[in-house]
C-alpha cells in the first residue's frame, strides 16, 4: 500500500514571514492608495480562478446541451432577420442607410448584444458566485473577470457568422476591420462600467435586475442599432447624447465603411469610459464586502 505523505511534516517549524492583516471598522476609502493597490493585486491574482470558473460554467452549460453553441449564434441572427423582414415589407418606416440594410442591422445587433451583455454580465456573474463568496474569502473581483471572459467568448462566437455573411454577400471588407475590435472593446468597457455600478444595488434589491433589463430595452430604441442616426431635432439630440450611440456607430463604421462618421464623439465617450471605469472598480471594491455582509450565510 502506498504510504500517505503528510504535508505538515514537510513544513519546517517556520520562521517564515507571515502576511499580517488587520480587520477593523475603519473606512477603507480614506486610504485610496492601499485600496487601489489591493484591488489591482486581487484582479491580477484572481485570473487563474476566473479562468477555471469560466470554463466550469461553459462545460456545465454544454455538457447537458445537444445544440450547444447554436444558442449563442442564433439570437442576433434572428433579431436581424426580423428587422430585415419588417423593413423589406415596409411594415417599419426606416430611413435609408448608407450601407445595405441587412449588413447594417446585422452588425448593429451584434454590437448591441455585446453592449447589453456587458451591462448585465457583472451582476449575473456576481450572483452566480454569491454562495461561494459568503462562505469563502476569495478575491471579490473574480466574478467580474468571469463576466468579462463570458462576454469575450460570446462576442467571439457571434462575430463569426456575421463576418461570414458579410464575406458571402460580397460586401467589401475594409482594412479598418482589424482595428474594429478595439472599438468593440470600448463598447464593452462602457457596458461593464455601468454593470459594475449596478452590482451592489442589484445584489441587495431584485428590482435592479428587472429594471436594468427594461432600461436596456428602452435604450435599444434610443440607439441607432436598427435605424440610422436620426437628423431631425429633438430626436437627433436624444440619440447623440446617448453615449452608446457614438461607440456603437464608431465600431460599426470601422467594421463596414472604413471611415468613422463622428470620430470626435467617439473619442469623447472613450475618455469618459477611461475616467469612470476605475471609479466603478473602486466603488465595486468598497461596496461589495458590505453587500455580502447583508447576504448572510
Amino acid at each position, binding site marked *: 500500500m502506498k504510504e500517505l505523505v503528510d504535508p505538515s511534516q514537510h513544513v519546517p517549524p517556520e520562521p517564515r514571514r*507571515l502576511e499580517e492583516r488587520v480587520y477593523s*471598522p475603519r473606512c477603507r476609502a480614506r486610504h485610496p492608495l492601499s485600496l487601489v493597490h489591493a484591488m489591482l493585486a486581487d484582479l491580477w491574482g484572481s485570473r487563474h480562478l476566473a479562468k477555471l470558473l469560466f470554463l466550469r460554467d461553459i462545460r456545465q452549460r454544454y455538457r447537458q446541451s445537444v445544440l450547444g453553441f447554436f444558442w449563442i449564434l442564433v439570437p442576433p441572427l434572428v433579431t436581424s432577420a426580423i428587422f430585415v423582414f419588417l423593413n423589406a415589407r415596409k411594415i417599419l418606416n426606416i430611413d435609408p442607410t448608407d450601407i445595405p440594410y441587412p449588413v447594417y442591422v446585422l452588425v448593429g445587433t451584434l454590437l448591441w448584444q455585446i453592449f447589453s451583455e456587458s451591462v448585465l454580465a457583472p451582476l449575473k456573474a456576481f450572483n452566480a458566485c454569491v454562495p461561494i463568496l459568503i462562505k469563502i474569502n476569495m478575491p471579490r473581483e473574480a466574478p467580474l473577470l468571469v463576466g468579462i471572459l463570458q462576454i469575450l467568448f460570446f462576442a467571439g462566437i457571434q462575430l463569426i457568422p456575421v463576418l461570414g455573411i458579410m464575406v458571402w454577400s460580397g460586401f467589401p471588407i475594409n482594412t479598418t476591420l482589424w482595428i474594429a475590435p478595439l472599438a468593440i472593446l470600448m463598447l464593452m468597457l462602457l457596458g461593464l462600467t455601468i454593470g459594475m455600478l449596478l452590482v451592489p444595488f442589484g445584489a*441587495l434589491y431584485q428590482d435592479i435586475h428587472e429594471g436594468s433589463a427594461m432600461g436596456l430595452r428602452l435604450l435599444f430604441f434610443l440607439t441607432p442599432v436598427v435605424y440610422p442616426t436620426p437628423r431631425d431635432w429633438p430626436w437627433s439630440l436624444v440619440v447623440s447624447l446617448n453615449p452608446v450611440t457614438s461607440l456603437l456607430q464608431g465600431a460599426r463604421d470601422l467594421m463596414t465603411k472604413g471611415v468613422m462618421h463622428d470620430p470626435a464623439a467617439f473619442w469623447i465617450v472613450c475618455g469618459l469610459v477611461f475616467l469612470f471605469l476605475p471609479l466603478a472598480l473602486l466603488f465595486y471594491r468598497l461596496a461589495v464586502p458590505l453587500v455580502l455582509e447583508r447576504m448572510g450565510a
Partner: protein
Amino acid sequence: MSNDALIEVEAVSKKFCRGLKRSLWYGLRDIGRELTGKDRHAELRKEEFWAIRDLNLTVKRGEILGIIGSNGSGKTTLLRLINGLLMPDLGQITIRGRIGALIQLGAGFSPVLSGRENIQINAAVLGITKRELAACFDEIVDFANLGEFLDSPVQNYSSGMRARLGFAVAIHMRPDILLVDEVLSVGDLVFRNKALERMDKLAHSGVAVIFVSHNLSQVDRLCTQVLFLHKGHVITQGAPARVIARYVGETMVSDTTMRHYPGTELSFRVLEAQFLDPDGQPIHQVISGGSLSLAVTLDVRAPLDTPLFCFVWEPVGRSAILALTHQPRDRQMRPSLQPGRQRLEIAIERLPFLPGRYTVRLSVAGAIESQLLGKVDYLATLEVLPRSDQYFVTNESGLTELNAVWCFH
C-alpha cells in the same frame, strides 16, 4: 513573543439586523458611509442587536481552540469575522498568515464535472496556486480515497465522498490558521477520525486551529483550550474539561414532555428525570465505569396496571446502543401504580459506556406489552467522561467496554 499569536481578536463587536428590508436599507446606507469616508456605524440602530459583544481571544501557533455554545450564540459569526467575511463594527482583529477555512467543504463543486476538474476549481477558490496544486494533487486524491471515482461526475458521489474530497483539498493548502465549522458531521466515522487526526497533526506542526463543534467529546479530545459562547458573550474560557462541564451544566435541558400513542389515554406524565450520584446528588456527568442512578418522578392520574418501562440509551447523533427494560419482566411481579406522585429509581452499578454524550429515551407499555402508552424523546442527557486507565490504540474506541482477562500462554 507576541508574534506567536496568529489570531488576535481585541474587543470585537458585531451587530446584525433582524428585519430583512431594514437590513438591506442599512446596507445601502453603509455603502454611502464608506464612500463618504466615514467609519462604520458603532451604535445600534432600530432592529439591530449585538451578535458578538466585546469579545477577546488569542490563538497561538500549535493551539487548538474549541468554540462551543448553543445555536445562535455567535460561533459562526465569530468564524466569519476571523475569516474576513465580516468586518467588526467595533474592535480589531489581527491575522498573521494564511487562513484555511473548512466551513463549506467543496465550495464551488459543480455536480456535472468530474472529481478531477472539481479539485482544480475548489483549490483555486481556496487560493491554492497552480504550482502548489500540481505538487499535492496526488496527495489530495489519496487522502480523499476516491479510487475510480476520480473521473466521474461529482453528482454520482455520496455526500461523504464529497465531504472527503472537500476536506482533502482544504487541508492541503498548507494554512497557518485553520478554521473548522461543524464540517465533520458529514462523512463516516473512519473519515471523521482521519480528519481529526490530521487537524491534530497540523496543530503539532505549528498551525493555529479554531474548531467549532457541537460534538463535545470531539472538542474534548482535540482542543487545547475551549471557549464557551452565549449570546455573543464569552461565558468562560480555559481547559476543555472545565469549560465543557460548565457548558453541559448550563445548557443541558431535557424535555420531559410525554407524547402518547394514538388510541391510548395518557394517564400519567413525567415530572422530572435526573441522574444521581451514589450520595443522591443530581449530576450531569459521570466517569466511565462509575456508578449512578436514574430517578424519574411521575405524576399518575389514574391507576396504572402493571406498566412496563423501557429506557433506551443513545450516544448523541447515533442509534441506540442499549435498551434498559423493566425488571422483573414477569407481569405478576410488576407493581401497579396508584394515582399520585410516584418515583422510580434505577441503580446502575457500573456504567459500561465509553466517554461521550448520551441521551435517554423512555417508552412505556401497558399491561399488555405490545400496547405502547407513551414516550419521552429526551428524558435526560449524560456526559460520560474518560477514566484515567482507559486508553485506545486507534481512534475508534467503540461505545462500551467489556471486562476481560488477558493472558498469554
